[in-house]
């Protein structure tokens, strides 16, 4: 179990992609953190069969 990447993250500037509740991104912006808010919506229009297929394809 190699946790070097985690230890390296400590002390580095966080650069965050936020998908979901916008309030979390708003709070990070208040703290002057770099955050990109996604305009997330369910993949494949929420079609469960398509989503299962995407999962099988590793997408």
């Amino acid at each position, binding site marked *: 179990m190699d946790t070097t990447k985690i230890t390296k*993250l*400590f002390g580095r500037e966080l650069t965050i992609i936020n998908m979901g509740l916008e309030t*979390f991104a708003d709070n990070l912006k208040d*703290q002057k953190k770099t955050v990109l808010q996604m305009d997330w919506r369910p*993949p494949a*229009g929420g*079609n469960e069969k398509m*989503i299962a297929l995407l999962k099988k394809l590793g997408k």
Partner: protein
Amino acid sequence: MKKIIIKKDSYYDSVFLMLASKAVKKISGVIEAVASMGTETNVGLLKDIGFDAKEFEGVRPNDLIMAMEAETKEIMEEAFQAVEEFLNKKRHSTGEEDTYQPVNLENAIRFLPQSNLVLISVPGAYAAREARLALNNGLHAMIFSDNVSIDDEIKLKKIAQEKGLLMMGPDCGTAIINQTPLCFANTVRQGDIGLVAASGSGLQEVTCCIDKLGSGISQALGTGGRDLKDPRVGGRMMKMGIQALSHDDRTKVIVVISKPPAPELARQVISDLTKTGKPCVVCFLGQEKRHPEKNLTFAENLEETARLAVELSSGSQDRDGVFAVSSKTIDQIVAGEINKKTTQQKYLRGLYVGGTLADEARISFEQQCIEIYSNIHPDKAFRLKDPKVSQNHTIVDLGDDAFTVGRPHPMIDPSIRDERLEVEIPDSEVAVILMDFVLGYGAHENPAGQVQQFLNKARSDNLYQWETLSIITSITGTDEDFQDMAKQKKLLESMNCIVMPSNYLASRVAAGIIKGIN
């Protein structure tokens, strides 16, 4: 009259839509107002409350449903207009309507190649896929979402272990990395105490107590509630967190917080902590008292966890600190409150927004041989028959699913607690109300103000006997939290609430009163 409007491919997050629904419901003449995405669950809920199933044919999870019931056609139109305005206000609130917002993670990473963490709070059915994409692209992940299957959690944590990345969650509500509060978290002083926790409000309470003692933290990592509970998950994130902190030069003391883990996982955590060689504090909340072993010290409650960590960090015992409330002082407070009581008053009502804080209070009472009923009691014999109806001495976690279907968590919208207070405080048999107030990012902007307003009105309406009812509280927060902790304390004290420096001390006072009058 009822009406539904569907907006195709118009996605909004659930909390925003709940707040929109709440705002529109306030319009006089609106009987029901629901704005929600067209998921199977949400459509089912709308059918359950009487909306016509035919209206939802062809609706997909990406579609926005606005469902209204109003007394007249004019009020109906007003309600729909109000929703539209609320939705439009969101799009233009920051004046950033031209800001690029990628629709999928691949585009997001392309746009921000230096990103190192993905924060996921999408519906649970989709969260695992998104986390897998994040990890496979070399990014650390935090899943706030719940309703992720345990199989998915195991797979994600295996990927995270292989790649050496953080996979905090699912159902991880709190973390602080590089002094950056994530989701529900406080602004805590920088220091050398590193924490890993399988409990959100537990992590908030301990980090805030550390701050109140004048010390600080290096990192506070969350693992999600199942990490140490289910042997199949295997404590993977906890172990990774411990190892990462053991190799971190800025971390001098390591703290672990959890409810009692599965026994084999508890042994592994203790073994891993011992190997770090750093002084460690372990809080398995509810576990029996345990003596120190090698570099490990065991704490029985969250405040003690913080105190021990600060002592180990600074090398000095905190004799004059904020939690040094003597037994004599507690006895005096308790005696004063008992003197106020009528002969009818006997029961406790603990009304909590933090699940682990509710647990800590319950354990505190049970350690004093006071039986507690709760909606989250691990013993089914003491589980409330109806979470909305108290039995004998009761502590409720208002953040539990029973209260939050279709509503924001009470940390975001404390009105759930007002509704319960309205039922409990007029009851002449209730002696003590015990409450937690959680500040910080993610939380309501003025939780104490909300309760102060409620109690003020309740007093002028003669809803309760304020001279005899004890209201015992604590504030989980720091001086740097935006809600202004000092102001929150004053607001509570203005309504005769007793504000103790920690949840543990508040529980001790409440238990002392209950024991004294029964």
